[in-house]
């Protein structure tokens, strides 16, 4: 059995969503487009899985891990944004489109937090100095029961 590291799992998920959303974006732009029942909810379920995965793995993601999937993640976010713009013309898909918009915001927030707090915070000398000062302050009055 091959055990994949989480970065590979994240990359694989991103790739899968990227292919599906790009394919859908191409087809939905066609004047002969016909909605395949259940296709969009299945795609959105995959996006939810990716968000959960990024959320669960947040503390184990290193700068190297992020470098491995950051570009792919940004491409997927942009593809989903374009897909949303095409998809919002179909009023019958409103519930799914609203969900997609929320998922895009979730992915953008996760991407931001990984970049800022997992990758850049250790290099932010002001923040590191503040944490160092924090470790020396007297909080003994709060130790009382």
């Amino acid at each position, binding site marked *: 059995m091959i055990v994949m590291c989480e970065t590979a799992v994240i990359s694989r998920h991103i790739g899968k969503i990227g292919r599906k959303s790009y394919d859908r974006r191409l087809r939905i732009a066609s004047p002969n487009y016909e909605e395949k029942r259940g296709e969009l909810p299945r795609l959105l379920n995959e996006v939810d899985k990716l*968000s959960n995965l990024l*959320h*669960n793995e*947040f*503390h184990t993601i290193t700068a190297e891990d992020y470098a491995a999937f950051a570009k792919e993640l940004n491409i997927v976010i942009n593809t989903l944004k374009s897909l949303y713009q095409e998809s919002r013309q179909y009023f019958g898909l409103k519930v799914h489109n609203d969900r997609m918009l*929320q998922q895009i*915001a*979730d992915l*953008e*927030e996760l991407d*931001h*937090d990984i970049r*800022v*707090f997992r990758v*850049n*915070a250790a290099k*932010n000398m*002001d*923040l590191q100095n*503040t*944490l160092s*000062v*924090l*470790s020396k*302050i*007297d*909080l*003994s009055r*709060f*130790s009382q*029961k």
Partner: protein
Amino acid sequence: MVHFVSIASFRKRLTNLLDVKRGVYSGIKVEICKEFQGNSIEQIRQNRDMILINDESIVIKLRLPDKKQRLSKSDGYRLIYMVMKKVPLVVFLDVYPKRGPMQQLDIDDKEINRLILDFITENQSNSLVLHDINNCLQEID
């Protein structure tokens, strides 16, 4: 016993949110209290929403729902708090909504740094305010 304190900018933010017309954010205190009531300090320290961890403290960006507006955790509020590792202390640093007229999309490391510095200053000047988590964040003298 877990102590809950806030810095001045948190309280100002809370007041501003509660002042928004039509009570859009009027459920915020209830949502905050619900997350902490009955929890031990160990339970509060264990949270998957941690964004910064060091030897002394953990900064958590907690996703809160807004049940009053039927918004899920991802669409509701973000509560930024710090929980100390050596004393049973929770410090409320910031809170913002993800939707509506006072919407904020994210918070950066500079802002977190400023909030922690505020805490350090206010701890030194004894101006932190204690809150009753079982009484809608009522301030304790």
